[in-house]
């Protein structure tokens, strides 16, 4: 890791929205297995990430959360149709991110089951690398979108 990446890794923060029935026990199991993953990762349990409105993601980015991993139950969700609703919402957030010039790789929708320790380590590691590469979200928000004409949302 070069110096810039090291600085980024220390000063960046990743939020994990972990479904209570699948991902949260999966992340516990990751710790039980003493599998390492970046320590700038903060896990918030949720009955289902479908509950978060678009505005929640913006609150996070604006407050300085540099990457968000949505660790849902995927199609194993105990709540009917919730994954489809969640995926549709995240697509809308992606559109908004493009409009505001945020790299959409900062938001990652995944499914992590209650024993998926390796999948969690991989997903959170991949996101951490993206965040390291991109640096803090604040700079990107401040830069704003590319000038008109270069790319449409």
């Amino acid at each position, binding site marked *: 890791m070069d110096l810039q990446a090291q600085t980024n890794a220390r000063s960046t923060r990743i939020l994990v929205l972990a479904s209570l029935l699948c991902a*949260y026990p999966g992340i516990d199991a990751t*710790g039980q297995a003493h599998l390492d993953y970046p*320590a700038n990762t903060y896990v918030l349990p949720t*009955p289902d990430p479908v509950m978060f409105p678009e505005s*929640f993601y913006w609150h996070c980015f604006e407050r300085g959360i540099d990457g968000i991993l949505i660790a849902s139950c995927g199609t194993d969700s105990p709540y009917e149709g919730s994954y489809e609703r969640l995926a549709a919402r995240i697509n809308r957030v992606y559109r908004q991110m493009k409009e505001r010039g945020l790299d959409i790789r900062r938001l990652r929708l995944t499914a992590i089951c209650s024993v998926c320790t390796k999948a969690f380590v991989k997903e959170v590691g991949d996101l951490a690398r993206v965040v390291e590469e991109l640096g803090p979200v604040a700079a990107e928000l401040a830069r704003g979108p590319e000038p008109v004409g270069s790319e449409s949302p």
Partner: protein
Amino acid sequence: MADRGSEGSDRRRIGVYVCHCGGNISDVVDVEAVAARAGADEDVVVAWHLQFMCSDEGQSTIEQDVRELGLDRVVVAACTPSLHETTFRRVVARAGLNPYLYQHANIREQVSWAHVHDQAAATEKAARLVEAAIAKAALLRELDEVRVDAVHRTLVVGGGVAGLRAALDLARWGMPVVLVERSNELGGHVLRLGRTYPTDEPGRALIERLVSQVRDEPLVEVRLSTEVCQVTGYVGDFHVGLRAVREETDGHPCDEEVEVGAIVVATGFRDHEPARGRYGFGHPRVVTLADYQRRLYAAEGEADPARALGIDGPVRAIAFLHCVGSRQVEGVDEPGASGRLNTYCSRVCCTATVRAAAETRRRFPAVRVVDVYRDIRTYARDQEQEYRRAGEAGVVFVRVPTDERATVEPAPREDPYPLLVRTRDTLTFGAELEVPVDLVVLATAMEPGPVEDLVAMTKAPTGADGFLLEVHPKLRPVESAIPGILLAGTARGPMDIAESTTSASAAAAKVATLLAGDQVEMEPFVARVDLSRCRGSGECVATCPYPGAVGLQDVELDEGVVVPRAYVNPVACKGCGACVAVCPNGAVDVQGWEMSQYLAMVDAITADPAGFPRAIDPSEVTTG
């Protein structure tokens, strides 16, 4: 930061307790620094760090502080909440606080155990998680459990060994049971198994014993050739439509309705059927293990193998093939009729197969027996001996490489044997083998039963493998995510008879405790509407997947104007929060998981943009 409640400028009085977990946490996390940082929060009255928060000493410290210091919220930073959240809620309640004014921070599984190699980063993360927990705690509200009148009757769906066991146990707990079986007899697969391990008792005898007990039990009402056609209601009060099984059931209305407080799903498994031709399936000399066991048992006194097994021609050699439709691998195996690859192990087939192979050798010593396997998983107590005995009985084991499969083909006409099994054998250093046999026995997988209709009616989720899914494989193994719907036996995944009946007894015990009182208590984590914000858009109603959970009703405003406003039926709401995200006015929340609480936690996590530990002045805070 979000407004911390209705008490005006009054601060909260929060107690924070950081657990060492006897070194599990404190060997990695600087718990003293974490407690000190917590203590710096203006809402925190006391911040301790103790050896074991779950010990008597830890619990009584909290109780005492609540009473003596007038704490109004409690935060414990310790192991995962699934282990001790309930413990600490009870402590808080004993001290006279509402148990939901409690917040847990997970700093063991998600901090000290995960970040062993970076103590500074682990300490920083733990401190922030505790700060986030304090921020949420400040916004917690008092909550009451949702209570529903309990109907003291249970529906058991499926009359296999698991359903029978569950019904009997429930009756012995004094609970009336309606036992619904789709076929025209009780017993399920076990009825046709022949002799079963570990007791050697014939499946039919075991079932007959259970069935006679069920018949003698006045509290159990058995409905054969009956199926469930509708499920409405919720834990404590399900309304279940039943109808007789007919040739054409589609669209046929239900014949009757029963009211029950809980449902035990014991619908069992389905036998895997290989694609025609795969492993010779469809050839008259290729049979399934269940079929073979049945034949062996039906002719127990018969010494001639051909007559005993009902084979037309000499029986000189038999091959048993393990893992047919189990532990399938993408790129190597083809999906069966379900369209899914069964990546799981069916668990019972190894023991059942080596036993059948050994019995064959013992009864027909002239018959050569080859056991073709990938791994032998005789996992339970005493089962390893079955494997050893099979070897002693002269069964020859051949081990197929994990990424290859044995093939079964009809032999050329002139061959003395009708079938040829071809495989490589890793036990003989990858030798190519061609084994001529008279009969092939396939240990076919246990697949999920036909539960699509039940799943659609109850919303009980299935896993990626198609079996019904438990809430937690270790901590809540017989509960589905739908309160009041319990899982028994192989409906949940491959199990042997002992495991099936154990899980059935566990499900029955769960029901008995659930329906013990006049009312069922459910956690209060359901949606709540803030009428001061609701404008009656109806978005919540449109998005909610659960009938009757949210609705609109007319509400009269002060000026006599009647407007539609949302309401929640707490017993029908599952607390998923789909309604929260779509409300344009932010008027809906899931109790205990409110959006303002999440925002406050995010603010706490991001409070210091530098990302390095803040300087702490320990003299400012109280620590233990």
